[in-house]
């Protein structure tokens, strides 16, 4: 849309769709949202859960690996955690819990244990400015190679977002959802 002063106003559907998906997940009785800056403000993902009721948002300390293990443990008791990491670079600190536990639990229990965790990870923006090599990496392809039970979904277009989160919630397995924070301001 072109405004009278000549500025172009873009309707940012990507972020709107993420907010719509979080609102929908937040309406489910068995979901709980965890992570740093999830109970309070702090980064781009924080703004996408602002409509979710406060009692469903658990603010956690900075302990990435423990965060994912906690989410898995909560899922073992029937909750569906949506656990959030603002940068892929931070998320890789949780690989032990991701690869050795959440991803192997079904095999290690002969299918008896199927904890469902929805992991949200954001790839940091490189434009209009880059946050640097420790805040902008995208390890999606590496994750696809490492994981066997967890499905990895990279969210590239606004129209992909809501159906992907809907499918993740309705599935009986865990998902790693890769978002691009750059798209929050460009798509």
């Amino acid at each position, binding site marked *: 849309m072109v405004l009278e002063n000549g500025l172009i106003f873009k309707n940012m559907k990507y972020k709107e769709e993420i907010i719509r998906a979080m609102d929908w997940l937040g309406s489910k009785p068995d979901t709980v949202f965890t992570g740093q800056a999830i109970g309070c403000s702090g980064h781009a993902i924080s703004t996408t859960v602002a409509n979710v009721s406060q009692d469903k948002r*658990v603010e956690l*300390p900075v302990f990435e690996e*423990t*965060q994912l*293990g906690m989410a*898995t*443990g*909560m899922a*073992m008791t029937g909750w569906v955690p949506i656990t959030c990491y603002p940068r892929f670079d931070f998320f890789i600190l949780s690989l032990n819990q991701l690869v050795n536990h959440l991803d192997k639990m079904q095999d*290690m229990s002969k299918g008896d244990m199927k904890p469902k965790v929805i992991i949200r990870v954001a790839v940091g923006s490189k434009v209009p400015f880059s946050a640097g090599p420790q805040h902008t990496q995208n390890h999606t392809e590496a994750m696809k190679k490492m994981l066997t039970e967890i499905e990895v979904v990279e969210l590239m277009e606004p129209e992909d977002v809501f159906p992907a989160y809907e499918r993740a919630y309705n599935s009986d397995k865990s998902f790693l959802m890769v978002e691009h924070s750059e798209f929050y301001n460009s798509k």
Partner: protein
Amino acid sequence: MKIPRKYTKVRDVNITPEELIAFEDKVKDAYENAKVQGPVHLSKNNENELIELFQYIHEEDWVLSAWRNHYHALLHGVDPDKLFNWISEGRSMGTNNTKPNFYASSIVGGIIPLALGVAAGLKRSNSNRRVWCFIGDMTMETGVFHEAYKYSQNMNLPLQFVIEDNNLSVHTPTDTAWGKRMKVPKNVIYYKYKMSYPHHGTGKWVNF
């Protein structure tokens, strides 16, 4: 071993020390006759401590353990025949069930965040059940134990850590490797024992 006063006995444990030892002897025989398709980590010398402790563990509580888990599984109610079959299939380090709630992992400290999450889930569900997390002395020294212990205490989560101290991680003496042992935190159940078996296997080379 001191059991905190807040706990009361909630079940009879009908397994004797001799039966626990006999189960591991059966595994030992199968292993040495190449009937077990994976590594085993056998227990011995801590039968009395565990039999006492499991009287305080409700049958619907969660028990999380590690690679040396046969005693914990049996005492929590995992069927001995089922357990033996799993061990024979090479699943000794991951004898996991939801009836009873039992999970074991072969990654050092890996169960600690899971235990924290199960406890958080139980609390959020207003459950009366709790989590019993069995770890060794080297695991107690790790960073993940420190942060999880601190969080569980601060948030009043229904999580009880049990430290089983044999002063070893595989063959590494914990006190030598760390230079000094840390003080056992309060509200942690702790006991010492001496290993009879090697870290894994039986001490006998097996040809498949």
